[in-house]
């Protein structure tokens, strides 16, 4: 059981991706949905680092840096949108935001 291979890391990444997808699809609170997106991006990062370690190529780790950058940008914009939404509509629930105009 104990030599940990790249397949182990890929399976862990798949489990994490599934948990993140469940969080995105089932929770009503937009904040938790955004946190679940972070989980999905982390699953991708685990895969990239595992392959980088397996192939002894540092490019995978560079791409993890780009993923983290995009995650930071996404979080900043999404939380800005959330603040504007809460100011206008007084809710943070995804299923109460059901109109396309004010």
């Amino acid at each position, binding site marked *: *059981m*104990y030599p*940990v*291979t*790249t*397949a*182990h*890391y*890929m399976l*862990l990444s*798949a*489990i*994490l*991706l*599934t*948990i*993140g*997808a*469940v*969080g995105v*699809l*089932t*929770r*009503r*609170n937009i*904040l*938790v949905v955004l*946190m*679940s997106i972070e*989980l999905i991006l982390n699953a991708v990062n*685990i895969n990239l*680092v595992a392959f980088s*370690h*397996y192939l002894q190529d*540092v*490019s995978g*780790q*560079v791409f*993890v*840096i780009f993923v*983290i*950058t995009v*995650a*930071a*940008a*996404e*979080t*900043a*914009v999404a*939380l*800005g*949108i*959330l*603040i*504007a939404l*809460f100011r*206008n509509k007084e809710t*943070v629930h*995804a*299923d109460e935001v059901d109109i396309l105009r004010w």
Partner: protein
Amino acid sequence: MLLDSVLFYLFAILIVGSSILMITRRNVVYAAVWLINALIGTAGLFLLQAAEFLAGVQVIVYIGGITVLYLFVIMLVPLREEMLQRRFASQGWIAVICSTLMLVLVSVFLFRGADSFHLGQAAPPPAELGQMTTNSEQVGQALFSRYLLPFEMASILLLVAIIGAIVMSKARGAPGSSISSMDN
């Protein structure tokens, strides 16, 4: 080798357990704390795979930056009312079934294909990396030579995101606010 395996399973349990707790907590602050736990586990996995620089970046940027941003925004949410409301969407069980099917599918492909992809132990490091020893040095070398253009584009993306976030969250009555001229 044995220590590596034990640590891998320890971090894996930490990550999966914290993630499941994160998506099921009613209180958003608890969810953020469990998210921090899962991110710490991921940083540990990075350390296990000799990516020390990324482990540091994970702790500083994700845990120190992004999660704190979440905690600030959580202050907006009226937690008392939140505790009385439904947590999950009404058709959430369909999503759970579909996601589990996806996991089963990926696992089947992984177990059937693990041998044909030769996903075994890590390859030995190539000989030409001998003069560059540390992980940070290798990452920096790749980032500023081969991936210089994506690096600059990432910095522009961050600048655009900062400006976008400021414009989005500007107060309604602020002078020159595009939000205030749109409604009313």
